[in-house]
């Protein structure tokens, strides 16, 4: 009988440790550090972008609604890509749902760190349907 009780005790302890491990894992995967949380915050003046890597080039797509293409400035130096553009019309932040902020977005600004194997001297770009597409070839090996 004491053997059965001891077995039961060991089983309960083992299950409790397993469950605690699962809880810790869940909390870890779902909770974010302040640094991670702040990295999700988006500055309204900063456009979203995606970077696609191909065999011989990188293509950066930057979403810039309302951008005035005539005011577009692109600077690439070292491993930094800097984009600036004015908006065709000023957008109040409450128009786009920022409840507790005030202010007006009149321009876009963004700095991106580029991969080490880019040849910025051969950068080309175009604007297609309100999105800026920047193509930068890779330095040949």
């Amino acid at each position, binding site marked *: 009988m004491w053997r059965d009780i001891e077995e039961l005790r060991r089983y309960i302890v083992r299950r409790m440790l397993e469950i605690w491990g699962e809880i810790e894992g869940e909390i870890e995967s*779902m909770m974010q550090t302040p640094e991670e949380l702040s990295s*999700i915050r988006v500055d*309204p003046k900063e456009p979203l972008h995606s970077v696609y890597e191909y065999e011989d080039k990188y*293509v950066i*797509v930057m979403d810039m*609604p*309302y951008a005035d293409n005539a005011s577009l400035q692109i600077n690439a130096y070292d491993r930094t890509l800097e984009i600036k553009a004015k908006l065709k019309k000023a957008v109040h932040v409450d128009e786009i749902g920022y409840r507790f902020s005030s202010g007006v977005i009149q321009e876009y600004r963004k700095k991106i760190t580029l991969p080490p194997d880019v040849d910025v001297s051969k950068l080309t770009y175009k604007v*297609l*349907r*309100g999105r800026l597409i920047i193509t930068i070839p890779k330095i040949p090996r």
Partner: protein
Amino acid sequence: MPEIIREEIYDGIAVYEYEEFDLKEPSFFVLGLPDAGLVGGISVSHLIRVLNPREIGGIDILRMTPPIVIIKKGDPRPPLRLFAKDNVLILAAESPIPPSVIYQLSHGILEYSVKRRIDYMVSLTGLGTPNRVEISKPKVYWAASGKKALEEVARLGVDRLDDGILIGPYAVILKDATRYRLNSIVLLVECFPDLPDPEAAAEILKVFSKLTGTSIDVSKLLEEAEIIRMRTKELMKHTAKVMNQMGKSMEMRPSLLYT
């Protein structure tokens, strides 16, 4: 929150109804969860605007971390909201679904669909396409499970997704629908993986309109595409992070097997 007249709990997923309602037949349960290109979220948001359905309930994920409540005119709502009109039931979400609750939520939705005797579940989602920027008119594809669903999609005039991988809640719903004796259709449209894509959402709504026989005007969606892209920037960034946790980029890789 409106008075709850009915509550069902399915393994930690609570489905609330605020009023009695019936759906005409054939009924369509449209799911628009934030994912690639925010296609699902933007589509159902426009659908709600155009159809003006009644908000008849909501879904809460009881152990979700962090806990979320949506405030509308000072009134709390669960993070997923249910709207109904005629033969269309719509599920809309204001934030992406954490990977840890995907199975529970998906099965909760399936259970509720059985209870409500839904004829067709329709998931609206994006297919992340790296060269989307070169595509002027994104293409819509279908995937379906269930005999009646396969018959319906055959008349849509859109291509079948012959070969691919689906990740996330729609994957669970599509593969498990037959176990629940439900018909499930997934409409996928080429889109930017992690930039809001209202133009892709408009294309998917045109196909949805044909599927359901409900007239949906997408002109306003296209007119307001730029403001929608600005408005959904933060949600897109958050959704992209969650999609990354799920391994959503696997959808873009070729299949291993030829059969």
